[in-house]
């Protein structure tokens, strides 16, 4: 955790977008790699790099089925990932709340 309480694994623009997008799905749902790429607007290489980082922290889970042209990779937010995003959101809100009065002074 960084000094400001924001999880550094999530606190990067692309990974933040990824986490929020995956959190929009109900629990137990997955999103295909290609749809996720289309929604986030990253290159495949970029997306893989960020997903590996999130997967390493246990925040997302990827599964691959089939092979060759029938290969399908799906991505889902894990329970830990949802909890981590909730924690991140709370920390961010606290930061914004404390910054607001300071700006008004």
């Amino acid at each position, binding site marked *: 955790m*960084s000094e*400001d309480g*924001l999880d*550094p694994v999530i*606190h*990067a*623009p*692309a990974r*933040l*977008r990824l986490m*929020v*997008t995956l959190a*929009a*799905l*109900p*629990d*137990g*749902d*997955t*999103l*295909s*790699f*290609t*749809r*996720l*790429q289309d*929604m986030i607007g*990253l*290159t*495949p*290489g*970029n*997306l*893989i*790099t*960020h*997903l*590996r980082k999130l997967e390493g922290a246990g925040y997302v889970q*990827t599964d*691959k089925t089939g092979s060759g042209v029938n*290969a399908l*990779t*799906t991505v*889902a937010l894990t329970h830990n990932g949802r909890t981590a995003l909730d924690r991140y*959101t709370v920390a*961010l809100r606290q*930061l*914004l709340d404390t*910054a607001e009065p300071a700006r008004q002074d």
Partner: protein
Amino acid sequence: MNEGTGMKDNAGTDEAGGLDAQGAAAIMQEARERAQRELTIRRPLIFASWALVYLIGYGVIWLSVRGQHPYQAPQGWTIALVVVLAAMAFAVTAGVTDRATSGVGGTTALRRRIYGLSLALGVLGVYLMEAALRHAGASLGVIGVLGASGPLLVAGVVLVAGTAAWLNWYMFGLGCWLIVVAASSGFAGPAGAWAVDALAIGVPFLVAAGVSAAWQRS
């Protein structure tokens, strides 16, 4: 994960450097709104297309049978019109649903498939029952009431039962309304049932299309 070509890119540089709290909040809001917009099924089109099936299709059938004493059956071309309108409504429903749910897998997709299958089997069962009743000597009037309202009753029961999986109370309310209309329209007689169904389903569906369009815009 093997999508892509393993190309070198600047992913490693996309870290928190320069991302302040306001920036992070803006990214979260934009991503949340985009996900909601893209993953939500646009119901106004679905409601409107089915409203046409009832208002035009059932309405035309009623116009063709209202003068029949005793009741015979709808003319072939009016049944064909309903089939064409229903096929178009199915196509719109499938297209709109596919646009939102493309690439989405897991529990929700499985529920949706089971839900669609239940509806299709139920409606098919109604038409088979119509044939069975005819075979058993039921009058054309009885067949007419079942043909007009049977599919609505099935759709209503599937919607109400589907609430157990989706916990969507609008769906529950709509299902209850379909059951009430289907169960009571037969009292208007075999010809009148088509008119009652046309108005009692078509008009609320049209209203629902407008309301959900306004709700999705807000």
